[in-house]
């Protein structure tokens, strides 16, 4: 999984690319944790446009990012959610917790 970032005015955008499964989740969690800690953003955006597959391991990644941002009293938004990923997130009811667009 490839992970890249932009950070502007305490708005951190994290771009995920590839398959987000259990194999990739640990790396993704650590990378997102590190970036949030380094940037201390008020808003984090996870861009999933180039995620080609996600299972419940990805739910754990998103929930962890949500918790980290809540600890900072910031917000988390998830955008460009592919159809397969959206179905996984809907089963988990994550749309009730995290903003999607």
């Amino acid at each position, binding site marked *: 999984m490839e992970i890249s970032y932009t950070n502007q005015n305490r708005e951190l955008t994290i771009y995920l690319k590839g*398959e987000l*499964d*259990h*194999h990739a*989740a*640990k790396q993704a*969690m650590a990378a997102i944790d590190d970036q949030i800690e380094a940037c201390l953003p008020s808003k984090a955006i996870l861009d999933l446009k180039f995620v080609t*597959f996600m*299972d*419940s*391991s990805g*739910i*754990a990644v998103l*929930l*962890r990012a949500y918790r980290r941002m809540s600890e900072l009293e910031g917000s988390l938004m998830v955008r460009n959610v592919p*159809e*397969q990923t959206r*179905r*996984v997130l809907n*089963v*988990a009811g994550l749309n009730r917790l995290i903003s999607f667009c």
Partner: protein
Amino acid sequence: MSLEFPSKSANEGFARTAAACFAAQLDPTLEELEDLKTAVSEAVTNCIVHAYPKSIGKIRLKARLSENGMLEIAVKDWGVGIPNVEQAMVPLYTTGGEERSGMGFTIMESFMDTLKVRSSSGRGTTVTMRKKIKQRGDGEQ
């Protein structure tokens, strides 16, 4: 089809891709294929995380077709087993800590038509899932 592979996380992608390749002969829709891959990924991940928490063990993936387009997938391990299957299937229940969401069985149930879990403490677990692949072309213009 029957495949055996070690419980290494790098094999998750291999397992779901192999299942999708097998199912391709039924000419499934992209959504049906994605559902199948997601369910297989969950079942194999459970083996890696829960069945063999401290060792590398063997996982067997079996797939077969019946005449009416019913696809059956069985994922078997010889690991520690699930002490309480009913509890393990409750959404959000996990023994895997913050790295797991506890949604694996819920996703398998949602994305497949049927799900059966047989487990024996110390002897392993078999997850059997079925999904009917709609026959396209029948009755379509």
